[in-house]
């Protein structure tokens, strides 16, 4: 799918030349082993780098230049993958042939390269006002999770299950660590990132490959890259199922149930687990959706989510909290049904068909192509939609049952409202 150019130790370039899209897009990823201090720094950095660079030292000037380039985007962000912290830079521009300007691509790439190599730094520090402002934004982002009840309930569940594992850590670090970031420490972290992180670059679009290589050459030299250790999920030795309830002023309850499984995305049973999750609660024809929502009207939203990086599976539903026991019983029944083999050929077929559809559809977008290739390339030598679909089609009912049988229920979290009868 992508042509691979190994540049040097710790730097990989992947290019997909295509005329499918009206744009050219670049994604750059810097990975290092997760620790909360650098997470906090890189979160602030992701706001700061989108603000200005040396040549365009205010946001207005910086954005005006991007606007002149027909609304080219430059977005930086942070994410987490297993035990890695990732800094992302994503930039997209309209193809030259649609705009009335010479050298459009060259100007765009120059802007990108300058943003990375010549940031708005003076005397070893980023601009103080900018750093102060962006620290505040990141802190507010961390605090705002409370206001999104779905995310909040999910986080509470994960915190119950794996308080010390990477899965429970925020990609933004913590409030305290963000407050501790200084304009100088930010520069240190940025320089370390450029020198030491594993760098992967993806390009999708109809653009001269040589232009890309020439633009990024300076950025991709001189690396002191170190291999990141392989991640192994935490295994819980807890025998009892933890249960917790919290009350907020809401009208609809949020129920979250957490399970663990030894199957992760690197396991050979991964495809079977993906199919199992689909049958359980991944689609509208799934057992949870059909039996808890459609048949019993017990939930407006209900689904299962397989967190393959961390060996976890969660089931979440928007419910009337007075019916919590009934809903949990219904959910337990769906899992028991699957574990005892009550899975029809139809369910198996439908799930495989929808998984196939979803991977092909996702690969119809630029972002989908980059992100999915990145996720699967370790485990699939020649990743393509067809390769995955072949794997899913080969999954048998027995394998699905075996996958579901590995689930171990560990925790239940309920966010409920204040009125006992749930009525106005």
């Amino acid at each position, binding site marked *: 799918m992508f042509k691979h150019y190994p540049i040097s130790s710790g730097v990989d370039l992947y290019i997909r030349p295509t*005329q*499918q*899209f*009206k*744009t050219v897009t670049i994604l750059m990823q810097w990975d290092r082993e997760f620790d909360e201090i650098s997470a906090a720094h890189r979160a602030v950095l992701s706001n700061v780098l989108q603000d200005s660079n040396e040549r365009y030292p*205010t*946001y*207005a000037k910086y*954005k005006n230049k991007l*606007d002149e*380039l*027909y*609304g080219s985007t430059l977005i930086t962000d942070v994410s987490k993958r297993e035990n890695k912290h990732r800094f992302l830079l994503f930039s*997209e*521009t*309209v193809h030259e042939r*649609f*705009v009335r300007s010479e050298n459009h691509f060259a100007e765009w790439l120059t802007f990108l390269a300058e943003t990375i190599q010549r940031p708005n730094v003076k005397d070893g520090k980023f601009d103080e*006002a900018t750093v102060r*402002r962006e620290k*505040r*934004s990141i802190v*507010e*982002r961390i*605090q*705002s999770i*409370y*206001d999104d*009840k779905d995310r909040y309930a999910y986080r509470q569940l994960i915190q119950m299950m794996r308080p010390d594992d990477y899965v429970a850590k925020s990609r933004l670090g913590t409030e305290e660590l963000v407050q501790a970031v200084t304009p100088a420490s930010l520069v240190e972290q940025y320089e370390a990132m450029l020198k030491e992180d594993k760098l992967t670059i993806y390009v999708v679009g109809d653009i001269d490959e040589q232009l890309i290589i020439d633009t990024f050459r300076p950025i991709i030299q001189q690396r002191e890259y170190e291999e990141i250790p392989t991640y192994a999920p935490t295994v819980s030795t807890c025998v009892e199922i933890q249960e917790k309830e919290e009350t907020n*002023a*809401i*009208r*609809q309850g949020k129920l979250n149930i957490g399970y663990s499984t030894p199957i992760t995305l690197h396991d050979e049973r991964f495809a079977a687990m993906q199919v199992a999750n689909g049958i359980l609660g991944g*689609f*509208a*024809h799934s057992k949870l959706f059909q039996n808890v*929502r*459609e048949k019993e*009207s017990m*939930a*407006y*939203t209900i689904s299962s989510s397989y967190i393959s990086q961390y060996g976890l599976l969660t089931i979440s539903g*928007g*419910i*009337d909290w007075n019916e919590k026991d009934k809903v949990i019983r219904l959910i337990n029944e769906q899992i028991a049904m699957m574990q005892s083999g009550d899975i029809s050929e*139809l369910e198996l*077929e*439908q*799930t495989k*068909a*929808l998984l*196939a*559809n979803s991977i092909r*559809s996702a*690969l*119809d*977008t*630029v972002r989908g192509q980059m992100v999915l290739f990145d996720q699967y390339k370790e485990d699939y030598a020649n990743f393509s*939609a067809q390769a995955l679909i072949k794997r899913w089609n080969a999954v048998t009912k027995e394998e699905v049952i075996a996958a579901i049988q590995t689930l171990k229920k560990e925790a239940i979290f309920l966010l409920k409202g204040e009125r006992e009868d749930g009525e*106005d």
Partner: protein
Amino acid sequence: MEKIELQAVEETLYKEVLPNGLTVYILPKKEYSKTYATYTTKYGSIDRMFTPLHAKEPIVVPDGIAHFLEHKMFEKEEGDIFHTFSQQGASVNAYTSFTRTAYLFSATSNVEKNMTTLLDFVQAPYFTEETVEKEKGIIAQEIMMYDDSPDWRIYFGAVENMYRKHPVRIDIAGTVESIQEITKDHLYTCYETFYHPSNMLLFVVGAVDVEPMMQLIRNNQGARELTNEPNVERFIEEEDLTVQVKERTIAMDVFKPKVNVGFKLPAGQLKGQAFLKRELIYELGLDLLFGTTTPFYEKAYDEGLIDESFGYDVTLESTFAFATISTDTFEAERFREVVRETFERRNELLEAEALERLIKRKIGLFIRSLNSPEFIANQFTNYAFHDTMLFDHVEVYRSITLEDVKEGLEWFVQSNNSTVMQIVPMEKEA
């Protein structure tokens, strides 16, 4: 079948209006794996009063029917249509807005089968007392889920403040009380009137062979015994611009307060390019005063008066129009003041160079959006229902002048057409 070459955006569009009134568009996109299709009716939550098909007198129906209908379309005597699509490897969905209801599928295999299923299921209504009752429980949960969402409440609260009578002030799903009134007869009446092919538009985009697909659609529609009908008579009047409530505050379980300043704008039954131009003018005006490169934004963000949640939005329809400017903030009063000052200083803040640059940005953004079949199908339908073409965006952007934008902004400084909606954190018990 008409072939429309859209050279500026390098796409080819095919169109046909069938004998029964259905308008069909097909836009093939090379190298895409998926086929995406939307089947949309010009019927939304505001259509509560209308003359039913072949009737003489208008009727008023309970609130929330358009959305209720959308839910119930999936349930047939033989079972849930989701199953059929799943088996055929497609994912299906639907949505209801103020002015339209859309049914859509996305598939990378069995495209002909899935298209037939889409057309057939939307064409075969099946409602019983039992299925209607059951749906009330599910929709009640959905309404409550939205009631719990501060982001929805802050937005919709401003709309409720602005309108005295216009049905846009009613939540799209209705209320827990109003949906209790819905019967299967209501559903059949609304269905027969609004789901007539002459009131609908089918858009197919992505991986598609044009002629065979158009033939499939012609055959499918030819088998239905329906003839073209005139437009549905709807009874909605545009209100004057005076808002009903100038200010309202509610308490919710949030950490940071929210504020939304709303402006009631003239709609005037605009259609065609005039509609598109007006919408873009309102948007450009707000971009030039409140966009991320403006003095307002720089100062307000720097001071912490606004945060990453700050945004603004324009809605323009035939009989109503409004704009909202909102943010999370601990200084709601100051935010309102600064917004008002910014509008008052508009003429000194607007520059031709900034407009030119902004238009370049918008054109680029528009072209990038054409990578998305979903964007094309849904937005094309939206603009077609206002008698204009999505693909006219580039041309219309290039035609807008600073004078146009200044005129548009005059509507934001009238005396009685603005409102403020606020959400404050609840008092917690010790």
